[in-house]
C-alpha cells in the first residue's frame, strides 16, 4: 500500500461490497481489453522517502547554482535575495494547497492577496488594470499580442530586437496561431532604432512591442517610441523588468497600453527558469479583454467587505470559444510571493534598491570597461545589466571564469550573431563591490590569457 493512500485490504473489501463488484478490476470493465496495458509500466519501483530524498539531493548537487558561484548571469532572471518571510508565508498550507478560489466564502485570503497584488502591479506600471498574474514573462508578451489582435484585428506586429529573444520567439509562435506576423525593429546604439520603427509602421500594425530595460540592459526612451506608434493607432506593449520601475518612468506615463513582464525577480526563486509569474497590466479600455483571473472587491449579504473573482465572462469556463484566453491554472502562489516581496521592499525600499543597483552597475561597467581588451557594447543608460565586448573568444573566457567560481554573465552570441563578442553582465543586490572587483580581476586575466592564446604560435604577446 502506498503511504499516500489509505485503502487497507479490509477497506477495499468493504468498499467493493458497497459498490457491488468483486474486484477493483471490474471497475475498469469499460476499457476494451485490447487497450489494457498487459504489463507493468516500465518505470523503476517505488522508493522510501529517504531514498527519494537522497536521489534528488544527489542530482541537485550536480548543478552549479548561485549558491555555489559568484554569478553575474541575468538575461531575464536574476539572483535576487528572497527574504525568508516569503517562505514562511507561502509554505502555509492555507496558501499552498487550495486551488483557484471557486468558492469565495472560504477563499477570502487568496482573493484578497490577488486584489493586493493587482494594486501593487498597477502602482508599479502606472496602469489602472492588472490581472492576477499569467504564466511568466515571455508568454505574457504573447498574451499581450493576442489582446492586441482582439482589440484591433490588424495583421502585423513590430517587435524591437531589444525584446528578450524568448519573448520574441514566444510571440512569433503564438501569433502564428492567432494569425499575426511578427517583424523585427533593429537596434541602434544599444536601443530601438526610432527611424527604423517609423519606417516599418503603418495602419496595419496591430502593436509595437518594446522592452524596458531592453535585453542589452539599455533604458529605452519608451515615450518617444510610443508616440511614433500612436501616430498609426498601433497599441504599445512594453515588457518591463519590475525592479527598475522603482526608479524608471512607469509605462503608464509613457503612453504604453499594455505592460507585461517577468515577475521572478520579485521574491521568486530562480528554479532553473520556473515557476515564476508574469504580470499583465493595461489601460482601462482593455479591462474586458484581459486574460486570466481578476479579483474584485464587493460585499457579502451582511454588508461585510469581501473579494471575488470578477469579470468572469472573459474566462474560458464561462465563455469557452469566446474567452479572452484559455488560462485556467496560472501562478497565484508566485504572485503571492511577489506582493509579499513588494510589501517587504515598501515604498522607499523599491527606490533604494533601484538606486543601489544603478550605482553598483555603473561601478561594474566602469570597472570592466577599464580593462584591457574590454569595451562597452553600447553607452546607453543602464540600471542593472550592461553589455561589453571582449577582444577574445567569449565562450573560452566565460569557461575560464567558471573555473574560478565566477559566472561572468550571458554570452550574447547565443542569440545575437552580430554581438558574438558580447557579454551581458547582470548585477543584483547580492553582488557586492568585492564580488565585482573579483569579476573584474578575473575577467582581465582571462581576456589577456585568451588573447595571448589566440596569437599564432611563435609570435610575441601583444603588450
Amino acid at each position: 500500500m502506498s503511504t499516500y493512500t489509505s485503502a487497507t485490504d479490509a477497506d477495499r473489501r468493504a468498499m467493493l461490497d458497497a459498490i457491488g463488484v468483486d474486484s477493483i478490476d471490474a471497475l475498469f470493465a469499460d476499457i476494451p481489453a485490447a487497450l489494457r496495458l498487459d504489463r507493468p509500466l516500465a518505470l523503476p519501483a517505488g522508493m522510501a522517502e529517504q531514498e527519494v530524498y537522497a536521489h534528488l539531493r544527489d542530482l541537485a548537487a550536480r548543478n552549479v547554482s548561485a549558491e555555489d558561484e559568484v554569478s553575474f548571469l541575468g538575461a531575464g532572471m536574476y539572483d535576487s535575495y528572497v527574504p525568508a518571510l516569503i517562505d514562511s508565508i507561502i509554505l502555509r498550507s492555507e496558501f499552498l494547497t487550495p486551488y483557484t478560489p471557486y468558492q469565495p466564502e472560504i477563499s477570502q485570503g487568496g482573493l484578497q492577496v490577488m486584489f493586493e497584488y493587482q494594486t501593487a502591479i498597477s502602482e508599479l506600471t502606472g496602469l489602472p488594470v492588472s490581472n492576477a498574474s499569467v504564466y511568466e514573462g515571455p508568454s505574457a508578451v504573447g498574451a499581450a499580442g493576442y489582446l492586441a489582435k482582439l482589440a484591433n484585428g490588424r495583421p502585423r506586429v513590430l517587435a524591437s530586437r531589444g525584446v528578450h529573444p524568448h519573448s520574441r520567439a514566444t510571440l512569433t509562435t503564438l501569433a502564428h496561431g492567432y494569425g499575426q506576423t511578427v517583424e523585427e525593429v533593429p537596434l541602434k546604439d544599444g536601443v530601438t532604432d526610432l527611424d527604423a520603427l517609423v519606417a516599418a509602421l503603418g495602419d496595419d500594425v496591430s502593436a509595437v512591442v518594446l522592452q524596458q530595460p531592453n535585453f542589452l540592459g539599455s533604458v529605452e526612451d519608451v515615450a518617444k517610441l510610443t508616440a511614433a506608434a500612436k501616430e498609426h493607432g498601433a497599441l504599445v506593449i512594453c515588457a518591463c523588468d519590475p525592479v527598475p520601475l522603482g526608479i524608471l518612468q512607469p509605462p503608464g506615463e509613457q503612453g504604453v497600453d499594455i505592460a507585461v513582464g517577468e515577475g521572478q525577480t520579485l521574491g521568486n526563486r530562480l528554479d532553473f527558469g520556473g515557476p515564476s509569474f508574469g504580470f499583465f497590466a493595461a489601460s482601462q479600455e482593455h479591462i474586458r479583454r484581459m486574460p486570466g483571473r481578476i479579483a474584485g472587491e464587493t460585499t457579502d449579504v451582511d454588508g461585510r467587505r469581501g473579494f471575488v473573482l470578477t469579470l468572469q465572462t472573459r474566462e474560458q469556463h464561462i465563455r469557452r470559444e469566446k474567452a479572452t484566453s484559455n488560462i485556467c491554472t496560472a501562478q497565484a502562489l508566485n504572485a503571492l510571493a511577489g506582493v509579499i516581496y513588494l510589501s517587504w521592499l515598501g515604498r522607499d525600499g523599491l527606490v533604494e534598491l533601484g538606486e543601489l543597483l544603478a550605482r553598483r552597475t555603473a561601478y561594474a561597467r566602469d570597472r570592466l570597461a577599464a580593462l584591457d581588451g574590454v569595451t562597452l557594447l553600447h553607452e546607453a543608460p543602464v540600471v542593472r545589466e550592461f553589455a561589453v565586448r571582449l577582444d577574445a573568444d567569449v565562450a573560452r573566457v566565460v569557461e575560464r571564469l567558471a573555473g574560478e567560481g565566477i559566472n561572468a554573465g550571458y554570452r550574447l552570441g547565443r542569440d545575437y550573431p552580430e554581438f558574438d563578442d558580447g557579454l551581458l553582465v547582470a548585477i543584483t543586490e547580492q553582488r557586492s563591490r568585492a564580488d565585482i572587483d573579483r569579476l573584474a580581476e578575473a575577467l582581465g586575466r582571462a581576456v589577456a590569457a585568451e588573447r595571448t592564446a589566440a596569437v599564432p604560435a611563435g609570435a610575441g604577446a601583444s603588450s
Partner: protein
Amino acid sequence: DAVTTIYERSVTGRRAFAAPPLDVPERPLDELIPAHLRRTTPAALPEVSEPEIVRHYNRLSKRNFDLDTGFYPLGSCTMKHNPKLHERVAGLPGNARLHPLQDPQRAQGALELMWNLQQSLGEIAGLPHVSLQPSAGSHGELAGLLLTRAYHEDRGGPRRTKVLTPDTAHGTNPATVTMAGYDVVKVGTNPDGGVDVDDLRSKADEQVACLMLTNPNTLGVFDANIEEIASIVHGVGATLYYDGANLNAIMGITRPGDMGFDIVHFNLHKSFTQPHGGGGPGAGPIAVSERIEPYLPKPQVVKREDGAFDLDEDRSKSIGKLRGFQGNYGVFVRSYAYIRSLGSEGLREASEVAVLNANYLLALLRREGVAEYLPAAFDRICMHEFVLSGAPMKRDLGLRTLDLAKRLLDHGVHPPTVYFPLLVDEALLLEPTETETKETLDHFAAVIAEILREAKADPEIARNAPYTTPVRRLDEAGAAKNPVIRQPL
C-alpha cells in the same frame, strides 16, 4: 475582525527592508539615467515592518480553506495529497537557486531530472516524445494545436480550419481552439456519456485539423469506442488530441498512445500532485507520437551519446517557443519525486484507488435519501470522478446545486465542481482522489444526506448558507458591474 488590506496597514516611515550598504561611489542618479526617463513619484507600496507583514498574511491565510485541512473533492482538479517531501527537494539550493541559463554542463543534475521525467511521462502516456515546456494544462493544449497546425502545414494539402470538441469538453478546449486560430465544431454525446460516433463521422472531414478528447471524459465515463473514434479521425488525416486532465484514472492501466492519440498533455499538478497554490503554478507537458515529434517546441532536453545531457535548440521544424527558458522546473522536481516515490506499482495503485474511492462514494450517494434528489448522471460504474444532477433536488426541495455547495461549507467540506459539465442540469462533478480515507468518504456522504434531510424540513437554511465562513454570499454581480480591482491609494 475588520478586513484591512496591507495598504491600509501602511504608516509612513515604517519598513521591513534594510538595503545592503552602498559600497560603491554614490554617483548622482542624473549622471546615470537622464531625468526624463526616471520616475517622479514612488509607487505607493505599503510601508510596514516585518512583523506586520507576517501577521497580515498569516491572518489572511486563515481565511482560506485548504487541502491539508479537509476534503476537497473538486471534480476534474484531482486534489490529491501533496507530499511534504516535494517542498524539501524543490527547495534544495541546487534546484532553487539554479539559473535557467546556466551552462548545461553545469546543470547536469537538472537536465537529467528533466530527461528522466520525460522518459517516465512518455512511458505512462504510451507516446515516446515529450516536451516539458508548457506551463499549465491549457498551455499544453495550445501547444498541441500549434503542433497540429505545424504538422498539417508541413504535410501540405488544403488548409484545415476546424477542431472538433465534444460538448462535454473542459472550457479550456474551445478557448484554446480559438487562440490557435481554428474554429470550434462541437460533437454530441451519446446516451452512455461517450462521443456520439455518428455525429463525429458526419463532422469529420478534410477541413478538420484535430479532435480534442478527454478519456475518461468529464462525465467520469471511459469512452469504449475510442478505437473507432481514432480510426475516424485518422481517416480524415486529422490529429487526435488527449486532454490529460483525467489521467489520474488510468495510470498503468491503459495509455492514450495505445488508444491512438497523437498528442497528450499532462497536468502535472493533478495526476502527479503539486500544491495548487490557490491557482497555480502547475505544468502541462506534452507527449507526442513519432510523426509529431519534429514540431516539438525548443529547446528539447536530449541525452548525448557520451551520456551527457544537453538542451537542443537546433530544431528546424519546431513550432518555436511557448515561454521563456525550459518550463516550470520547480514543478518537474516535485512530480519527478512523486513518480520515483510511487514507482510503477504505486502509480497503478493510485489510479485503482482513485477509481475505487469514486465508485464507493457514488455507491454511498446512491442510497435512499440522497439518490432521489441527486441522481447520478450516468447510472453505471464511473472512473475516478462522477457527475450528479441536482435537478430533482431543485424541483422537489427548491434547492439549487449552488445552495448545496454553500451549505457544505458550513460542514467544513470543500464543495465539488458545480455547474459543470454543462451537459448535465444542475451538475455536481465529484472527484474524491485516492488519498482520501474511507472514513472521509463516509462522512461526506453523511453530510450530503444530512443537508438534504435538513432541506426537507426547511430549505431556507441551505438557501441562505453559508453561515460559519469568514464572509457569507458575496455580491458577484455588483463586483462585475462596477469593478473595483485595485485599491485606490
